[in-house]
């Protein structure tokens, strides 16, 4: 698996070109949409009440679009100007902030009913300079403490991210706990290499009994997740096994061939008739 967060910091990696590519890729769109829906499910907001959400690392607004559709009012922050540019072009409803989440938020306490973040946290795990304030623990700490205060009590924050090791999960959860959050990790499809998704589900307030960590989805992922062209291969394989290969030189093939010869100007090509390509009668 390629890890863009190891290539360059987000605001540089998602430059103009990469931002466009990322947004137009239909596979990306699909994955983002699925994860947003799943995050909303984990967020477990009371139905009927339109909530005010924070989209952390909103990027080009792929997830924000779904929040719009679902009737939520939202505000997004992201560190990559090019991504936000694309979001503006796409005219999403939410307000957009150019902000480094590692430096914390400037929202008044209790502003949001919930927060979601799709595929973002892993970007916080690399130090860009050796200065102490750019170390991952320091940035995570700032991020979680300010986020904790910006959320309403009780509420939830759901982060989907791609940890590269268990140590990273450990680091993130311990810092989140220090910042006052409860909650933990939810893993969907833990046995699948491809469909596995890690969600960090954090609670603000509410005590232990009221809020429970939702269960991760288990079992086999749907067949849909397979590669698109595989069916053709299946069909071919099925044919080879069944032994019926279909006659190679059937009537269609002969007609095509004769047509070709005529076009090339070959002489003495027999006429097409009802006898063309017909089987001879068994003589004996």
């Amino acid at each position, binding site marked *: 698996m390629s890890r863009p967060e190891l290539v360059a910091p987000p605001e540089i990696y998602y430059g103009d070109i990469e931002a466009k590519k990322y947004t137009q890729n239909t596979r990306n769109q699909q994955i983002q949409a699925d994860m947003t829906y799943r995050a909303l499910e984990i967020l477990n907001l009371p139905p009927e*009440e339109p909530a*005010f959400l924070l989209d952390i690392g909103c990027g080009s607004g792929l997830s924000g679009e779904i929040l719009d559709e679902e009737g939520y*009012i939202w505000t997004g922050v992201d560190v990559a100007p090019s991504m936000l540019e694309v979001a*503006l072009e796409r005219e999403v409803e939410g*307000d957009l902030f150019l902000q480094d989440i590692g430096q914390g938020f400037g*929202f*008044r306490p209790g*502003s949001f009913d919930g927060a979601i973040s799709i595929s973002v946290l892993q970007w916080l795990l690399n130090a860009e300079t050796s200065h102490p304030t750019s170390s991952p623990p320091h940035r995570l700490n700032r991020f979680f403490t300010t986020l904790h205060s910006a959320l309403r009590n009780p509420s939830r924050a759901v982060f989907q991210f791609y940890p590269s090791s268990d140590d990273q999960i450990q680091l993130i959860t311990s810092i989140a706990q220090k910042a006052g959050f409860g909650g933990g990790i939810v893993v969907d499809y833990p046995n699948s290499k491809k469909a596995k998704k890690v969600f960090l589900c954090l609670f603000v307030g509410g005590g232990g009994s009221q809020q429970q960590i939702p269960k991760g989805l288990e079992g086999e992922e749907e067949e849909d997740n397979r590669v698109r062209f595989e069916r053709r291969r299946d069909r071919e394989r099925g044919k080879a096994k069944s032994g019926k290969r279909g006659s190679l030189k059937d009537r269609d093939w002969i007609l095509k061939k004769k047509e070709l010869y005529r076009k090339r100007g070959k002489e003495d090509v027999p006429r097409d008739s009802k006898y063309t390509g017909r089987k001879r009668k068994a003589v004996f």
Partner: protein
Amino acid sequence: MVRLITHNLLACHVKGCNTNNFPLQFRDIQIELREAEFNPDFLKGFMPKIEWKALVDAARQLGDTSLPLEQPEMLDDEFLKNLHHVLLEVKEV
């Protein structure tokens, strides 16, 4: 580009900046109106979170005087419509 609803939630978070950090002042702004869907339930749920004085001041600065100075007890339709307009349809650019 920020709607007034978000402006009402923003405070300065620079370290040591603890007094006089809210609301943020407008500077070099243009106003843009953009329609949004009217949603009374959301507004009712959001009322307790609003810092009323700051919102009214901000709206007046932008030349919108449809909101009363005091936060009203009764929420009638017209008031909600005005609130909706101010909160969600006025944007500073």
